[in-house]
């Protein structure tokens, strides 16, 4: 049974995607304690609705760039779960062959180009990618070669849930850049917004405003004013919304992606949300006291999954038994993915020096 809401969202599908991210992140957190995923890892628990609500509108031809907190973006875009996990373990089968770890993800076949951890680093890259997409479409760069510098053996065996291709031949591929409220302070954000507005790029900026940069609250870093209004002043079509409501994100993204796709220029969404675990690592850290008392608890009440689950039940779009089955199938998928990842091979020491130059 499909479950379209008023905006046409398949709420069950959205819930499934969010739940998948949540369960993956929790499984990572649990196993992180074994000290075998030896890399800095930024979990997105509590923020799943944004990645899912946005990516629901993207095809594999659309491209996503992300940041240090990239697992959710990667999975929502269709990135290979097994290769994500192998990457965390540092194995050769990882999506970066182990060279990147949690903070450097890629799955070109899924249109997930890259996440990297220098804050702001990927923002102009997304702009440049969107520019290239625009030029390819306009015919300014017909002979444009492919992005891949080579293929890897596992690239071919990747299977993933395909999404529909763009409907009209006139439509452009859209590029999405995910970033945080802290990132918005970097000058390169503004440089990219200016260029995107100048060239009317098919680019969607998604600001995940979780009010913190590591442990520093917004009030120590930015004056009181709305982030998205700065984007609007730059000439972008900009809006803000509840990043914990997947339905709201879905609706905002629907308009934004359609606008970007049809040549109306860059779009900007500021979505309010909250990270539950510590900034980096598998634990909670509410005891450190950098969040105001009750803040985390309040946000947990506004859990994007809980809300959607309730809506599914209330609207009778699903029932407990279906949701239990969903959990079971996810548990199974995740367990198998870990098994696959753990069978990975150690990258050879000799390979360490490869691939610096083409």
């Amino acid at each position, binding site marked *: 049974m499909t479950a379209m809401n008023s905006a046409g969202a398949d709420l069950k599908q959205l819930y499934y995607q969010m739940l998948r991210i949540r369960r993956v992140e929790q499984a990572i957190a649990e196993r992180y304690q074994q000290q075998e995923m030896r*890399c800095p890892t930024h979990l997105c628990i509590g923020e799943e609705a944004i990645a899912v609500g946005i990516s629901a509108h993207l095809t594999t031809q659309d491209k996503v760039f992300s940041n240090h907190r990239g697992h959710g973006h990667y999975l929502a875009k269709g990135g290979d779960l097994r290769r994500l996990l192998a990457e965390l373990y540092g194995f050769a089968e990882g999506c970066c062959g182990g060279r990147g770890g949690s903070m450097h993800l890629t799955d070109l076949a899924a249109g997930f180009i890259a996440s990297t951890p220098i804050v702001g680093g990927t923002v102009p890259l997304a702009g440049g990618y969107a520019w290239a997409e625009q030029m390819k479409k306009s015919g300014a760069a017909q002979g444009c070669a492919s992005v891949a510098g080579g293929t890897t053996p596992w690239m071919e065996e990747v299977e993933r849930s395909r999404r529909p291709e763009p409907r009209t031949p006139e439509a452009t591929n859209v590029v999405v850049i995910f970033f945080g409220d802290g990132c918005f302070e*970097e000058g390169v954000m503004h440089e990219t917004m200016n260029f995107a507005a100048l060239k009317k790029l098919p680019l969607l900026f998604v600001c995940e405003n979780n009010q913190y940069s590591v442990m520093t609250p917004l009030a120590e870093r930015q004056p009181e004013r709305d982030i998205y209004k700065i984007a609007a002043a730059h000439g972008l079509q900009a809006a803000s919304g509840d990043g914990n409501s997947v339905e709201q994100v879905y609706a905002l993204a629907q308009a934004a992606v359609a606008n970007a796709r049809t040549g109306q220029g860059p779009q900007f969404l500021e979505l309010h949300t909250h990270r539950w675990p510590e900034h980096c690592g598998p634990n909670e850290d509410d005891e450190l006291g950098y969040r105001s008392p009750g803040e985390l608890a309040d946000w947990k009440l506004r859990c994007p999954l809980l809300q959607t689950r309730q809506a599914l039940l209330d609207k009778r779009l699903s029932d407990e038994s279906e949701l239990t089955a969903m959990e079971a199938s996810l548990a199974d998928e995740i367990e198998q993915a870990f098994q696959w990842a753990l069978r990975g091979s150690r990258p050879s020491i000799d390979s360490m020096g490869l691939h610096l130059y083409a």
Partner: protein
Amino acid sequence: MRDVTVMSYGEAIREALDDGLTQYPEMILIGEGVPDPKTIFATTQGLREKYGAERVLDMPLAENGMTGICIGAALAGMRPVLVHQRIDFALLSVDQLVNNAAKWRYMFDGQQQVPLVIRVIVGRGWGQGPQHSQSLQAMFAQVPGLKVVMPTTAGDAYHFMLDAIADNNPVLYIEHRWLHHIQGEVDKNSPRTALTGAALLRQGGDITLAAFSHMSIEALKAATVLAKHGVDAEVVDMRCLTPLDVDSVARSISKTGLLLVADCAPETASMAHKLLSELFQSHGQHLRQPPRLIAYPNHPVPTSHFMANHYYPGAEEIAAAVLEMLDKQPLKQIVTMELQSDLAKDLPDRSFAGPF
């Protein structure tokens, strides 16, 4: 009068920042995370409480702008200490550091000055990966007008920080993350360093080991084991990069006749080249054998510990090279064995358990 306390390198930094804030009312301590609960690996602990939120503060993520803002405050007479948790982030501020801070006093004919300290930490281990573990000291040390120091011991960590704060020039203070836990003596009453000069960490007559930052620790480890086997290495810690104290190394090789340089940087980015080049121009005759260089490979550090653990040369490689140079290869096996540690190779010490 000596007043010696034993503390870790990280504690020595905290102590120097504390004393600096007391001695210089115009000092400001600023950086992403400075007043947060983790306080930059505890090196800024308690300072906000003691000196107030106006002088000890966090900042927006805007490395170039905030560097410029600190330069401006320094022009107005403040003494800002700006902290980056990773030296990699300082790459965003190269414009302000090189175009402005380094040149300001010169280009304004000595009428203005920039008493600024940039404190940066070199990452290593637990999958820091390509963008969080760069060794950029040589990039900055080549810029006329910047002072660059890489203290290795707790004592130098303390004094260099306090002297950097007092200095009326921009000083880049580079900490290697793996030095933070190492204990050492701090004598607060020892004389001002002027941020110059190498340090003789160990005397020895058989070979000179000139080493940088964390590699000096590795060189010491190697020297300690080598000594048990009759090889007496002299260890010179190249703690100040501008100017580089070539004379101290020249003096040492005039005695030992052999030189091995060990740097914690990719070979192309190694300060060793400047050292060796200067020695070649003026002191080459002291060496009985060509000098050798141990440095990191010329590519980024991969995240996977399966690879990264083999990226970093250390005491074993140093000892092996020394034995080759002295034609004592037969000792290699036993020395290597004695140097092996049971600690995981991507951890600096036993107290450490990721993710940072």
